[in-house]
């Protein structure tokens, strides 16, 4: 049986995660503990929705760099709103956060899809814009845990279920739900297959009668909505929200997506890959802070290296595949 290259990639990714965990378990005391499990999963839970949204955007051959600021703005606005209306239904609060995120994503989507401005430019602009808005709007005031309702403060400690003595938090379940829902949609929903089509060959998508602009717009809105969910989880996890909330999330999200095997030139990728990629990136991130041999200031450098390594491996792999004839060569179509 022929193993699909994507499957091969997922297996390699799983092995990389295993190797990382094993490596750090020899370096850090009491690493393989339930506490470390909870620590890494709850931290990854904040990144995962952002990575899921990012994956969608990258699949359409675009990128969303604004999400770090989106997370920050959503966390701040939602926290501020809760300070005034603390009795709001929790589901509505999450809905509000996702709505704010979606509106911010729509700004990106309109400019990229119909304004025809390259997504890297648009989202680089909104990355700065949203952050500046937050700085201006917050007037350097911090949202504190004291102003938040008790259910939200308790949420990060709430346990959904335990398995083998490991606690799985509600926030982790929420984040996983976003990935699973998106994964199911991408394989079962006909409309969702268009994300792949548009990224795989935009010209062909137009010729096939697909409204590419609409597809790209929806990808950005969903990225915003999921960043909104992450903003909500961020607010719950940290409670204290300053103007730097969510700073640098775009780097982690892009790293998780690329390491998770979503092709940076669009058209392919799976949610399983994104989940494993997120866990791997966050495991490394969390472990480095505890590793005495290396300064924690190397964390960003390592993330950057991880992105480059993943893309390099992909490029080399697809070139090798081209050589054995699984893909058409770069210079010309095959001899037949």
């Amino acid at each position, binding site marked *: 049986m022929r193993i699909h290259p994507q499957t091969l990639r997922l297996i390699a990714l799983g092995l990389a995660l295993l190797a990382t965990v094993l490596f750090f378990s020899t370096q850090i005391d009491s690493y393989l503990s339930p506490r470390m499990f909870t620590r890494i999963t709850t931290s990854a839970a904040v990144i995962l929705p952002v990575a899921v949204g990012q994956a969608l955007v990258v699949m359409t051959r675009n990128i969303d760099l604004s999400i770090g600021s989106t997370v920050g703005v959503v966390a701040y606005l939602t926290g501020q709103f809760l300070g005034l209306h603390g009795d709001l239904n929790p589901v509505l609060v999450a809905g509000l956060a996702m709505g704010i995120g979606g509106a911010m994503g729509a700004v990106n989507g309109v400019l990229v899809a119909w304004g025809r401005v390259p997504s890297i430019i648009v989202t680089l602009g909104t990355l700065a814009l949203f952050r500046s808005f937050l700085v201006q709007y917050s007037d350097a005031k911090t949202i504190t845990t004291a102003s938040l309702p008790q259910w939200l403060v308790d949420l990060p400690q709430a346990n959904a279920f335990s398995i083998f003595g490991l606690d799985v938090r509600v926030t982790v379940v929420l984040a996983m739900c976003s990935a699973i829902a998106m994964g199911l949609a991408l*394989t*079962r*929903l*006909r*409309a969702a*297959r*268009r994300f*792949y*089509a548009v*990224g*795989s*060959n935009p*010209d*062909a*998508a*137009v*010729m*096939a*009668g*697909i*409204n590419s602009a609409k597809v790209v717009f929806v990808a950005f809105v969903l990225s915003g909505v999921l960043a909104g969910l992450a903003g909500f989880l961020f607010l719950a996890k940290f409670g204290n929200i300053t103007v730097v909330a969510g700073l640098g999330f775009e780097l982690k999200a892009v790293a998780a997506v690329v390491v998770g095997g979503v*092709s940076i030139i669009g*058209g*392919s990728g799976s949610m399983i890959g994104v989940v494993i990629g997120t866990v791997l990136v966050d495991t490394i991130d969390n472990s480095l802070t505890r590793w005495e041999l290396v300064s924690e200031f190397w964390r960003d450098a390592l993330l950057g290296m991880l992105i480059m390594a993943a893309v390099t491996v992909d490029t080399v792999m697809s070139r090798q595949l081209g050589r054995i*004839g*699984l*893909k*058409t060569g770069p*210079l*010309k*179509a*095959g*001899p*037949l």
Partner: protein
Amino acid sequence: MICRAAPLAALRSLTGWIPPVTAVPVPLFPTPAEPVAAVLELRNIAKSFAATAALKDMNLAIAPGEVHAIVGENGAGKSTLIKIMTGVYQPDAGSILVKGASVSVRSTQDAQTLGIAAIYQEPMVFPDLDVAENIFISNRAQGAFMNWKQMYAAATKLIEQLGVTVDVHRAASGLTLAEQQTVEIARALSLDVKVLIMDEPTASLSAHEVARLLGIVRTLKAKGVAVIYISHRLDEIFEVADRVTVIRDGQHISTRPIAEVTPDGMVKDMVGRAVDIHAVKTAANLHGASVLRLENLGREGVFRGISFDLAMGEVLCLAGLVGARRTDVGLALFGIAPATEGRILIDGAEVILRSPAAAMAKSIAYVSEDRRKMGLAMALPIFANVSLASLGKLLGAFGIINRTAEMAMAEKYRKQLAIKSVSVRVEVGKLSGGNQQKVMLAKWLETKPRILIFDEPTRGVDVGAKAEVHNIIRALAKEGVAVLVISSDLPEVLALADRILVMREGKQAGIMDISQATQENVIRLAAGTDVRGAA
């Protein structure tokens, strides 16, 4: 794989030989050609871009289930016509009728709904998706949820209907060009297409694949689909078309049943004057000293054992079937895909060519077949393309490019090669295929090459421009340039070459002087005496 039909198809493709029409009797429409209920009709369509009129008063009527060929020189307006029929462009004036009712086609979705679809020379597939999904991606009748099992079954059935075999689970990126086209045709069929436009579908196919595609065209016709077939290969048109429409300068010139058409008459309509399509061989040039010598040149797994001498003023043609790896020899000589065995000698001294820069330093130029990918910067104006390979000689004080000299250089070639454009400031992407070819040639001529490699110099170029390009090549040889021409077009090879090297399956099958060369013995060498599949 042994295939009995292949040698015939190979012969047809190589020689331009027209087989007698035997298959389906040609349905005769009442003349003057105005079928009763046209499935698609264009009336007085006009379209201009800036000051240039691409179409003026174009009329066309397509009958249900006919194969309607459209021919015309490059720049005659064929591309614009297709884009209007498929909703990419909106006409400035005139009307489009589907089954007698006036319609507006504002997008490709509109065209699809009306049952009009098009396939192109470069297939429009989604490389990351599998065959079945490629077929059904935009099919609205499929429901909101994916039913993979049913989709694979339906895709298999559609592909089978076309009389070919393609695994519907495979990703489109691994398919050959011909298979990708099949996928596109299946997609059109799944959308219940009434009119299928095929734009130069065979330009990059091997003889065997061409035969299969023409088979598919007949299948479509039998299903009642009208096919608009656009091709420069006249032999194909005589093989499949029921009627032929000639367009010239954006206008309708003639529409005739195929039985009333002769190749000479068709070409005369296309260019507006009589052209001798059977190129006359000029006397062989006087050859000087050997410039280029190959000794058992090879590239691992691609080609091997290529040996020849090329003298100043000589034209050597590499002939062979598609897949004989002729282009790879050219790529090796230009350092793009370097040779791994054997020797290359220039003026008797061995050279190592590992990059285009190294080859250019040895005065080698390569005019590639793929203008878009390897030849031209489409978004840049003519002058910038012409000067691209020889910017060094345009540098003035402080290394700044002398724009006046650059323009003068381009202007010289515009006149010399008769590049049809208002000025050298026009973007190359806006020129017709033949004129793009001339711009690319100008770029390399300016490097004053001693060895000039042409890869399919007249592919996608119309008959009129073809003769011009041939004259230019002969003239260059006369000036002492050593010319290597890679061509699939046998009449072209016989018209241009002083000597012919025939390749088969990556190996040198033989080399002969033009005085001994005939169509038959070249084909025999190219296809092999054991008469196996064409590709």
